[in-house]
């Protein structure tokens, strides 16, 4: 079992996790747990080789710690990653649906506005687009996030700076 510390990768640091590495896995796990949409190299992870000597000092700046072993890594690859991808696909589908529907509603609104007899039909005012899409928020990602936090014993460190 290896504990990884996940740090915010400073912009322009030129550092990135190696593709397919456990470090990269630890960063993706941290992103799943935080449920934030973050760019690819937003985090960078390092294994904590010597917990006794460095733990106290490192955790001052680390954002997360993640525990990974072979069994958990396999679970991540085979089961959790496909689930998160499918969950992201739903968010993408919702985003695309919103854009397409807004565009069509704007075209309809424009057609009514240009007409002589149907200017009273205010499409964008009458269609409850935001209300409908609020209802479309889905929660599967929250489910995945909670489980991932538990399985990988993720600890989040909140630093309060004056």
């Amino acid at each position, binding site marked *: 079992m290896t504990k990884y510390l996940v740090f915010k990768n400073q912009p322009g640091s030129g550092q990135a996790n190696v593709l397919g590495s456990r470090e990269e896995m630890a960063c993706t796990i941290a992103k799943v747990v935080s449920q934030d949409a973050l760019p690819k190299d937003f985090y960078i992870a390092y294994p904590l080789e010597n917990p006794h000597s460095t733990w106290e000092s490192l955790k001052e700046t680390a954002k997360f710690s993640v525990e990974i072993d072979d069994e958990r890594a396999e679970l991540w690859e085979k*089961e959790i990653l496909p689930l998160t991808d499918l969950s992201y696909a739903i968010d993408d589908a919702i985003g695309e649906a919103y854009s397409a529907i807004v565009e*069509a509603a704007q075209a309809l609104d424009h057609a009514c506005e240009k007409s002589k007899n149907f200017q009273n039909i205010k499409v964008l005012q009458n269609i409850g687009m935001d209300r409908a899409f609020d209802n479309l928020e889905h929660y599967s990602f929250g489910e995945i996030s909670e489980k991932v936090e538990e399985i990988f014993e993720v600890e989040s460190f909140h630093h309060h700076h004056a």
Partner: protein
Amino acid sequence: MSKYLVIPRRADSPMTHSGGSTEETICEIAKNLLRFPGPSDYLMAIPANTKVATFALVKDDALCSIEVTKKTLDTWRKDVTNIQDAINSFQSAKDHAETVLDRALADLDEAYENSTGFQGYIPSDDISVYGALEEMGANDLDYTFQRTLQEMYKFQVLRRQTA
């Protein structure tokens, strides 16, 4: 204001309305308001004050009556077609969104079901694609538009179409 009756055109009838005629436009209006499934040239418009119209009424052939003026015909040709096309595009966008979301949710449901660590949770239980998009009230919009057209053309259904 001129009143017309709209009847189904016999399949073997050689008569068709000429392009751009009042009768042709009335058949398009009737197709829209009746939600007639076939093309508009499966319909015929006849002036209501003719013997043919009386005969159609006696035979219970007339599907609907429609009243037009030069202005309302102009409205149909210039405004309504554009708006109807935009409504259809809007409905298509909504239908497409429902299909894509439904498929994505079904894939996620299946992945959860086949997983070892995540069974017991069904993502689609937490989200109703159809219910959510109905909330937009697009059907109300279409209804309002159709009602406005029905009033404008003094549309009256005379005989229900049989399936």
